[in-house]
C-alpha cells in the first residue's frame, strides 16, 4: 500500500523537491507566497523557502512571465505560476514570440529553461472568462512542450522532468483535479517521462483518447461501456506537444475505432489534430468514422445546468462510442 495524497499535495511535494534540489529554482506568480497560491498549491512554501524564492508578483502576466523568461535566460530555473490559462492570454507574446522562439532566433545560442504552470478547464461555475481550455492553442506552437498531468503520479513526477528540459515547458493543471486523491508509493518519487502517452485502461473495441480533466469522465464512460458489452481503451495523451503518435496509432490499430474527448471547442482543436493524424496514419485500420466529444461552441455558461450541458459528460462519451460501434454491440 502506498500513501494517500491529493493532486494539490503532489504538486506541492514536487515544488518542494525542486526547490530543495536546485538553488536556481524559484517560484513566482500572483498570490503564490503570502496567500499560498490561488489553488493552495504553494501553501507553506514561503515560510520554508523565504520571499527570495517564493515571489509574489504584481497583477501583470505580461510582466512576470517575461521576467521569468529573462531569469531563465540568465541561468535560473524559474517556475512561473499563471493563475489560470484565461489570464495567460496576456502573456502570449512572451510565451510564443519569445520563450518558444529564442532558441531559433539566436541560432541556438540561447535556451529558455522556464517552466510555466497554470490551471485550465471549466466545471466550477466561474463563468466564461475563467473556464477556457486553451492548452490546445499552446500545443500548436513549435519550440515549447505542453504537458497535461491528469494523475497523482504525473502531478508528482512531471515537474522535475520539465525542469530538466532545456526548453520552455508549459504544465496545464485542470482546476477540477486539485482535490483528486490517490495513492503514491512510499519512498522515492515516481519517475515519469514527458514524451509519451499512456494507456489508462486497456480495451479492444474503441480507443477513447483524452487528456487532463476529461480523463476521469472518460474512464467512467469506459466502465459504463463495459456494462454494455463494449471494451473501451482509454488513452491519456499526457503530453500535448509533441504528440505521441506511436501510442495513439497502436491503440487505434488495435481497436479500429476512436473517439477523441477534449474539453476545448471542436473547431481547430487539439481533438481535430489527433483525428487528422489518425486519418493520415491509420486510415486503413479504421472500421468506423472517427468520433469526438468536445465542448459546445459557446462561451462556457455560468448556470450549473447549462455549464454541465456545454461540457463533455459521461453520457455523451458513451453515446459517441456507441455511435462508432454501430450495431456491433
Amino acid at each position, binding site marked *: 500500500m502506498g500513501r494517500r495524497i491529493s493532486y494539490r499535495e503532489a504538486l506541492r511535494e514536487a515544488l518542494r523537491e525542486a526547490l530543495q534540489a536546485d538553488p536556481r529554482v524559484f517560484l513566482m506568480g500572483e498570490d503564490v507566497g503570502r496567500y499560498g497560491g490561488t489553488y493552495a498549491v504553494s501553501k507553506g512554501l514561503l515560510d520554508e523557502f523565504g520571499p527570495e524564492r517564493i515571489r509574489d508578483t504584481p497583477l501583470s502576466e505580461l510582466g512576470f512571465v517575461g521576467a521569468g523568461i529573462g531569469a531563465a535566460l540568465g541561468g535560473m530555473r524559474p517556475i512561473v505560476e499563471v493563475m489560470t490559462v484565461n489570464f495567460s492570454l496576456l502573456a502570449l507574446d512572451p510565451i510564443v514570440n519569445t520563450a518558444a522562439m529564442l532558441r531559433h532566433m539566436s541560432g541556438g545560442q540561447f535556451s529558455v529553461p522556464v517552466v510555466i504552470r497554470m490551471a485550465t478547464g471549466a466545471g466550477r461555475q466561474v463563468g466564461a472568462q475563467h473556464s477556457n481550455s486553451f492548452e490546445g492553442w499552446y500545443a500548436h506552437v513549435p519550440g515549447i512542450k505542453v504537458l497535461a498531468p491528469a494523475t497523482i503520479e504525473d502531478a508528482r513526477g512531471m515537474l522535475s522532468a520539465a525542469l530538466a528540459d532545456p526548453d520552455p515547458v508549459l504544465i496545464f493543471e485542470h482546476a477540477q483535479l486539485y482535490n483528486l486523491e490517490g495513492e503514491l508509493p512510499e519512498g522515492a518519487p515516481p519517475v515519469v517521462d514527458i514524451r509519451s502517452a499512456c494507456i489508462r485502461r486497456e480495451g479492444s473495441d474503441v480507443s477513447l483518447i483524452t487528456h487532463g480533466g476529461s480523463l476521469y469522465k472518460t474512464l467512467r464512460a469506459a466502465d459504463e461501456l463495459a456494462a454494455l458489452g463494449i471494451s473501451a481503451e482509454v488513452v491519456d495523451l499526457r503530453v500535448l506537444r509533441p504528440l505521441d503518435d506511436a501510442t495513439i496509432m497502436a491503440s487505434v490499430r488495435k481497436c479500429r475505432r476512436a473517439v477523441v474527448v477534449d474539453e476545448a471547442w471542436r473547431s481547430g482543436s487539439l481533438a481535430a489534430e489527433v483525428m487528422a493524424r489518425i486519418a493520415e496514419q491509420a*486510415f*486503413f485500420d479504421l472500421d468506423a468514422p472517427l468520433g469526438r466529444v468536445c465542448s459546445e461552441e459557446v462561451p462556457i455558461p455560468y448556470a450549473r445546468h447549462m455549464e454541465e450541458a456545454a461540457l463533455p459528460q459521461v453520457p455523451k462519451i458513451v453515446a459517441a462510442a456507441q455511435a462508432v460501434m454501430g450495431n456491433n454491440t
Partner: protein
Amino acid sequence: MIEFKLPSLGADMEEGKLLEWHVKPGDAVKRGQVVAVVDTSKAAVDVEIWEDGVMHAILVQPGETVPVGTVLATVLAPGEAAPVVSAPVAVVAVAPVAAAIKAGPSAVVVSPVTRRPAVSPSARRRAKELGVDAENLHGTGAQGAVTLADVEAAAARQGGAVAQGLPIDRQQAMRRAIAAAMGRSKREIPHYYLSETIPMANALAWLQRRNAELPITERILPAVLQLKAVAMALKRVPQLNGFYRDDAFQPVAAVHAGVAISLRGGGLVAPALHDVAVKPLEQLMRELADLVKRARAGSLRSSEMSDPTITITNLGDQGVETVFGVIYPPQVALVGFGSVAVRPWVEGGELCARPLMIATLAADHRVTDGHLGAVFLTELRDLLQQPDSLASSSAVSGQGGKEK
C-alpha cells in the same frame, strides 16, 4: 444520350473493377479510343469506346466493381446538347443566368453522385485480402457500414482457404476464371477432334530465305505463318470462324485470331490479333510481338479480350507433339500446333527424314461435322506448302471490319 456500358471482356467475365478513367466529362471521344481501364480477373484491360461523342457523366468511379452491362458513363452524341439539370429553386439566382448562357451547355454538366456502399477502410482492405465482395454484405457498423468483423464472418461462411485467411490473389482469380470458362466449354460444347501431320520443309525453307535478308527485328516466326494459314483456310471453311450464341452459329467475316499466351507466373490469356486474313505477314509479326508484350504486361484492350473468333494455340515450343484443345466459348473451334520436328516421312514411295508438325482441330459439333473439319485441315496443310501464297494473300478481298 449514349450509354457506355461495361463490355464483356471474355465469355468468363461477369464483373469488372474500374481502375481508371482516361477521360472526364466534357472530353470529346472518338470511336476506338481507350477511355477507361478495367480489371478483370485476368488482366487490367484498356476499354475502348465505339461511338464518337462527348463524355457527359461518369457513373462508375475508380475502385468500384460492377457487373458486365452496367452503364459506366453517358456520352453525348455529336451535336447533342447536355440535358438541363433541374436545380433546387433556391440555388437558381437571377444574376448568374446570363453567365450560364454565355458559358454554354458544357459548363452546366453536373454528374449524378453515385455513393458506393459504406465499407470501413479496414474492412475494405481485409475483404480484398480474403477475396470477399464487401460491398454486397450486410453492414453492422456505424451508419450501417460493413465492418472488419462483417467481412471476416462472410469469409468464414465462404469457408476453405478463405477462412484460414489465405489471400486470394490475381492468379487464383485467373485460375477460377479459366476453370469457369473451360468447365462451361466441356459441359456445353460437344467437341470433336481431328489431326493432320503437315510437312514443314517448304515453309521453313521459305522463311529461312526470307529472313536471311532481314534484320533480326523484322524476321518472321513460323507462328505468324501458321496464324496466316489458319486465317486463309478459314476462308474456305468459314463455319469454324465465329460464335455459337442463342442456339445458333453466328459467322464472322473477319478472322480475329485469339492467340493463346501463357503468362509468366502462370495463367493464360488469348487476346485477339485482328483481321489476320487481310494483313501482310510483316504487320502480323509486329502486332503479335506487341500483343504478347502487352498481354504479359497486363495492358490489353477491351476489343482484344472480347472478340477473338477462333483460338490458336501453339505448344510446340515446349516440345509437345500434339495439342488437344478445349474450345473457348462462345467460339466454335480451336487450332492447335505441336512442335516442328524431323521425323520419318514417306515421299514418292521412299522413306526420308522431314521436318513435320501435327496440326489439330477441336471443333464444335453443333456447328460443323468432321467432314468440314477435314476440309479445313487439308486446306491448312496445303497452304503451308505454298508459303508464297500466304505472303501475297494480304491483298485478298474481305474488308475485315470489326463486328460490334
